[in-house]
């Protein structure tokens, strides 16, 4: 299926539990695949798990995910990648025994195209876009954290995604480094690539997204314009503590 600019990704009644631990507790979510949405929420809110479920890395315990009204709930991540839904990982997962170029090339040749020459071009372009060309021949286990984060992005880009799921790609970076990443991500937005971005550093996030979702305890507690979400009482409660009295203590 080819995603058109008006494609819709929809999740209905998503539950996910690991044993007796309920991580996602009835998520209803929908977006146009060329939108940019930010997800915030305290640790353990279920943000990363939601991303895993949307990208196909994990199957939900119950609920349904559709793309243009077509059920994709049971379609594995590798197939979703080919349809244009790709994620990056919170903790970078580079292929450490091969070079930066090879890391990105393997994504291009398996998801974007079957032509070797085209895959070379896609890989080089993705690496360039993420500012990693000088490192192209370096083994991936020899590069630093910022470059690992960039590599996550470059590798995901080489699949030629329509919608990117970014899991704390700015985490652990300095503000200056994070701003560099924002520039890259804004370039992707100009190309019409949709973004779902989990991030703790909200001011970084707001440079890219116009809609914010706040999660807590496996549920979406607020959704909408970033200002409205950030001033929402429930959101403040989720961040500041368990009871109203806790605020200001």
């Amino acid at each position, binding site marked *: 299926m080819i995603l058109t600019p008006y494609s819709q990704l929809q999740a209905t009644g998503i539950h996910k539990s690991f044993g007796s631990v309920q991580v996602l507790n009835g998520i209803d979510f929908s977006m146009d695949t060329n939108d940019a949405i930010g997800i915030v929420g305290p640790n353990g809110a279920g943000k990363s798990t939601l991303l895993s479920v949307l990208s196909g890395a994990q199957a939900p315990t119950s609920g349904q995910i559709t793309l243009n009204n077509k059920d994709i709930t049971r379609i594995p991540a*590798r197939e979703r990648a080919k349809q244009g839904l790709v994620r990056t990982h919170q903790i970078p997962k580079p292929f450490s025994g091969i070079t930066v170029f090879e890391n990105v090339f*393997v994504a291009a040749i398996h998801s974007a195209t079957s032509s070797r020459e085209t895959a070379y071009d896609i890989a080089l372009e993705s690496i360039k876009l993420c500012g990693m060309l000088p490192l192209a021949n370096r083994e*991936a286990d020899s590069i630093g954290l910022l470059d690992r984060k960039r590599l996550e992005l470059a590798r995901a880009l080489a699949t030629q995604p329509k919608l990117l799921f970014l899991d704390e790609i700015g985490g652990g970076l300095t503000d200056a480094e994070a701003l560099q990443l924002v520039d890259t991500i804004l370039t992707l937005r100009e190309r019409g690539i949709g973004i779902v971005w989990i991030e703790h550093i909200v001011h970084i996030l707001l440079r890219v997204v116009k809609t914010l979702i706040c999660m807590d305890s496996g549920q979406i507690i607020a959704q909408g314009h970033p200002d409205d979400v950030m001033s929402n009482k429930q959101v403040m409660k989720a961040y500041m503590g368990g009871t109203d009295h806790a605020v200001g203590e």
Partner: protein
Amino acid sequence: MKIKRSNAYSKVTLYVVAAVFIALILLPSFASNNVMERLTVLFIYIIMAAMWNTLAGFGGLISIGQQLFFGLGAYATIRITNMAISPFVALLIAACLVGLLSWPISTFMLRLKAGEFAIGMWVLASIGHLLVNLDPLIQGETGISLIALNQYAIESRRLLIYFAALVSMSGLLLGLFYLLRSKAGIAMQAIRDNEEAADSIGVDAEKVKKWFFIFAAFGTALAGALWLAQASSFQPKTYFSVQWTAYMIFMVLVGGLGRFEGAILGALLFFVVETWFAATGVWYLVGLGAVAMLCSLFFPKGIWGVIETRLSITLIPVGYQVTGLKPDSHSKNK
């Protein structure tokens, strides 16, 4: 910017390999019987090391049960020659059959992870051993000889086995070279390094692992069949012994895990050590163990890994090199 897959060293290597290959073809006309027999053994060692490296080095699939395929390759050869088929045709059919059998085996074994896979393969090898023992033709642990070889005069038999081993080794190494340079080769290394991430970018890990598993099974079975041809007798206990996998591990660890050249170098070293020191009995085994341990402690990338890093050379490149990169101002200043 261009992508290069060869370098100045690899071009020289190509000529050297071609020269060595021609020399090995001409060798029987002047070499002694003993040299030919020893070289046959060396070729089989190279196959074994390369096949184990295929799985463990490039795929991260560490098996301690490859003697399953080694033993089955020999056993199938016995069974097929028993149907009045030439042993030299039989060994190829045997390897194909074992390769075919490894397909259903892979579907459940590849579900196991890491240590479970390693031990599971060993268990499977023991089961294979016991099942082969049940075949009346084999007469339990007594075993059987490859009588069909007697139809050849000793001289031509030696020659045929030598060429069978040479062709098998060359063919398998060439096949492995192309496999590693293919789309599946780079995918397998990605799976080795992080299966979840490989899945997230569209790599079908199950399928790729399966092909590598079958390839290694086929090659190892061919090694077993060739070993039977040169040793001419089959006892299940010998062929299904874990020592074969121990030798493979030794060769690959010492030579260089995950490096094409490493497995070949490891096999050469093992061969030299065996030729000179095997007569010393127990100390030979103690020495092998010590060398393997020291190597994995001090040269985790093996001897070839050290050479490759120090001299930054690759003789048999299977990767991708980006050329024509503009020098980077940042890295230059550092």
